[in-house]
């Protein structure tokens, strides 16, 4: 019996001949990156050719984009980490509103925003932990548990505050910290970029991230190797809840008030961004940069359609098409196993 040796000599020409395009497609989020860049090139070219008809590059439009992206971005980052760990959180839209209302009303009662905002985040974390605890303790699908959470916290907003708008008047320094501008860039946009970088390192360069992928990819295997998968999932639930609260802070600081109904549907948009960004609904696959590109893509397309004066109610149809196409594409990639 002679050992069968790895044929390390003679590298496979197939892999060598891969074009740059194939290499990018093979990278995590590579395909979505290509789509995004193509869209950008087309938009920028269009804006340069028709500066008066298509104001994509106008400062006003860029500011709108930079203000719109962070809220969905925070929600999607939290939801995405949880999805990679193999669970869902449908309650983040309601948690986002609840914590924002809580923060705004505390500030209205005279509490410093620098105290109220962290408190809102803590409440978000705790709600996430509660979702996780119920899900894991009773072995339920998180989809159902957090569907309950969605309705419960939406109701809690009305119970706590009634159906009226809450004004948010924090210290001016708080406002400028979260919705001011630095070197022409919106503060909230800087925050989301920082979060993306932080989450990227947490998920792709840190032990915890490896455990998240292992837990979502094959819980049995992760368990067998000694990873405490329940703990990993609990932390991921907490992150989802906490990031929902952060999104609430950014949105409230920007607008200066909270509407009790404002979070409705955002949880689905966040999950949509994740799916567009290449996350698998079964967990274990995806990347932070993909999630962010998914958010950017949703907002860019919405923005372009608005600039082209498409009627508002058509927007959902385009986003819907994008989600389904992305899901089909990701499924094909998963089956071929190149992602």
């Amino acid at each position, binding site marked *: *019996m002679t*050992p*069968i*040796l*790895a*044929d*390390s000599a003679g*590298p*496979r020409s197939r*892999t060598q001949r891969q074009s740059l395009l194939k290499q990018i497609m093979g990278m995590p989020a590579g395909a979505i990156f290509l789509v995004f860049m193509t869209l950008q090139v087309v938009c920028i070219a269009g804006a340069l050719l028709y500066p008066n008809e298509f104001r994509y590059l106008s400062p006003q439009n860029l500011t709108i984009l930079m203000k719109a992206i962070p809220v969905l971005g925070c929600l999607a980052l939290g939801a995405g980490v949880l999805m990679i760990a193999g669970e869902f959180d449908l309650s983040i839209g309601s948690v986002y509103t609840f914590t924002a209302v809580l923060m705004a009303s505390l500030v209205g009662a005279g509490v410093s925003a620098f105290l109220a905002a962290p408190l809102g985040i803590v409440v978000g974390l705790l709600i996430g932990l509660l979702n996780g605890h119920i899900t894991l303790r009773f072995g339920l699908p998180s989809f159902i548990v957090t569907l309950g959470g969605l309705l419960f916290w939406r109701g809690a907003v009305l119970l706590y505050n009634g159906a009226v708008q809450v004004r948010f008047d924090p210290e001016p320094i708080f406002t400028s910290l979260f919705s001011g501008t630095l070197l022409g860039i919106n503060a909230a946009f800087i925050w989301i970029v920082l979060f993306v970088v932080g989450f990227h*390192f947490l998920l792709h*360069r*840190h*032990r*915890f991230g*490896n*455990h998240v*992928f*292992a837990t*979502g*990819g*094959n819980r*049995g*295997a*992760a*368990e*067998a*190797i*000694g*990873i405490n998968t329940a703990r990993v999932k609990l932390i991921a639930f907490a992150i989802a809840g906490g990031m929902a609260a952060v999104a609430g802070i950014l949105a409230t600081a920007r607008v200066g008030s909270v509407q009790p109904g404002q979070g409705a549907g955002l949880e689905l948009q966040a999950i949509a961004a994740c799916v567009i960004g290449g996350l*698998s609904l079964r967990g*274990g*696959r995806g990347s932070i940069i993909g999630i962010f590109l998914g958010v950017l893509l949703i907002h860019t397309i919405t923005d372009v359609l608005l600039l082209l004066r498409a009627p508002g109610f058509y927007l959902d149809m385009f986003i819907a098409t994008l989600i389904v196409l992305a899901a089909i594409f990701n499924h094909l990639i998963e089956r071929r*196993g190149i992602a």
Partner: protein
Amino acid sequence: MSNLLELHNISKNFGALTALRNLSFHIGEGEVVGLLGDNGAGKSTTVNLISGIHKPTDGYLSVDGKKTLFTCRSDSADAGIETIYQHTALVDSLSITRNIFMGRELTDRFGFLRQAEMRDIAMEVLQNAVHISGIDSPDTLVGNLSGGQKQAVAIARAVYFKKRVLLLDEPTSALSVRETEALLNQVLKLKAENVSSVLVTHNIYHAYQVCDRFVIMSHGTKVFDVAKADTTINQLTEYVVLT
């Protein structure tokens, strides 16, 4: 040859069902033992018991002559026992490197991964310790590997973390002929490095190729325990089939 692992009069009940009855056998250092038996003989229960998933109802295990109790999987891992299951051991959506170091990542003091170092080690282990064809990069996703290659990765993991006993549960059932051959060679190669193996299998021929000793189980207990030199395939088959 001293005994690395011993099972002493172990019984295991699941409610009214008796899965194991008064089972005793041992695994020596650098020994390859074939654990044979028909379906329902109690092989899987035995594997789960040695790897710490089940606790014995009665009796005990000893490692290096010292009585021990495994309460969970990591207890057996600490004792140097690695169980290699056909399907559950690896995460398909992660690279080979990440799988090898899963749960035992090399990190700096803040918990950040030392990726380059892990990749180099994975490359080294794949090329030198586990000779299996077709894996050209430790960055390959495990989901893209064949059944045999996956087991090679699981074995690489055990080799790198200096395990003393490999429990291979039906390792050849989903492998091609060529992969089976490579796997059995791997077991022999590890034996030369003083790593023991327990081959849990239906396939007497595969076991006969590499095992030093055979333990045959039936109805939850041991019915035959014999060194390779003292038996033949026919005799083993008779015991598996007729008891």
